[in-house]
């Protein structure tokens, strides 16, 4: 009983919030997520320099 199709889109912002709202349990996951993003960012930069 949620929508005519019965499918619920969780929403990206809401997914991130769930990670942050997990309290203590969330610290590790949050750190990892942003650390990976940072790494990817740095890697992109390096590739850019190479070209």
């Amino acid at each position, binding site marked *: *009983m*949620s929508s*005519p199709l019965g499918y*619920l889109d*969780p*929403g*990206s*912002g*809401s*997914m*991130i*919030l*769930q*990670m*942050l*709202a*997990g*309290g*203590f*349990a*969330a610290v*590790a*996951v*949050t750190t*990892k*997520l942003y650390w*990976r*993003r940072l790494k990817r960012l740095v890697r992109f930069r390096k590739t850019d320099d190479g070209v």
Partner: protein
Amino acid sequence: MTPDALEDWRRLASSALFPRELAAGRIVPTELDPQLPARAGYVAALRHERIHFVSYPYEWSFGMLRDAALLHLDLLASALEEDLTLKDATPYNVQWRGAWPVFVDVGSFEPLRPGEPWAGYRQFCTLFLYPLLLQAYAGVPFHARLRGSIDGIPPEEARALLAGKARLRRGVFTHVALHSRLESRYGDRRRDVRLELKEAGFGKQLIQANVRRLAKLVRRLEWEPPRSTWLEYGPTTTYTEADAARKAEFVLKVARQRPRRLLWDLGANDGRYTRIAADHARYAVAIDGEHGVVENLYRTLRDERSDRILPLVVDLADPSPGLGWRGQERRALWDRGRPDLTLALALVHHLAIGRNVPLRELVDWLRDLQTELVVEFVAPEDPMARRLLAGKREGLHEDYSRASFERALGDRFEIARSEELASGTRVLYAATPRT
């Protein structure tokens, strides 16, 4: 059910939580229907116990919405323990057995996919949490917003509504302000957040922590009904206790003529007469337009563990219409089952004078319900009617009289009996619709 849905059902049916919650009356009794559906692509069907009267969250009181939210979170927590989850989080999946909330959508249970977040979190916020926060922190009734939008209150709107001091209250920063910020930030990005979370090690313990914290937050939310005149209606009314006793007797006499299927009490107030008549009906719906009155009635019924009387907040001059896709996802109040006995005590003057509904229109409406009727007419000389008339333009309600009410009622109904109460300004009628 499709083959996938059937598999999910089997998983639920073999879980530990399903029999436990069934026994506790928190999930509607459901079983496989041996008769196969005729439609292509479906391999099985479920049949569940009948809900006597379907209602929607914009007709519930604060306490009802809160208890429905807690039921949802509880079931989700139990599901997660067995690696199951609920695929959505809508109050429309909760119905009532009197003052008992019952989860009705067993199709919402599905196996938890490792690393996936809780898909229903946003929906829980927009349809359960924000309406509750709005009522508890800002004193704003949630009914108009839930009725105005089938998806509830989006985070951005909740943020705007819960401004000022409310922003400092528990839960608002995380679930409203931050949620809204993140939503606008991620709204137009094509990043695959789901995959990112999975790779970062998102697990069910995070959902469990969030659910636990939400349950704690919701349990602490409180709303006290304002001390309006209506709340005092029961014990300290303007008419005498003798009148009330006669009224109770009149209602009882009609109610026990034969067992009724569905009783409606329109303008139920503290439910005094609903209870009397409900003893002779399979199920009763107690309707009142005042949120505070319904909240108090719900609390009493819940404490009594009543499973026969459903209290609802409905403004009878503007009752719930059909809503959603094609106006058919949520049905109008009248389309969810008609009563065979209706009480309309101390109601007519409110609609006729307070809301300017012509007496004839009012009687026509009651006639359309095709119900036996116990109706009270309050004469214009009565203190309650005088109070309502005081604010009106002279002559506007000239047709409001006992004679014109009786004429209108007599045209549409067979009046079986009537009784003038001792105060002399109130008359009761028992009537059956003319064919």
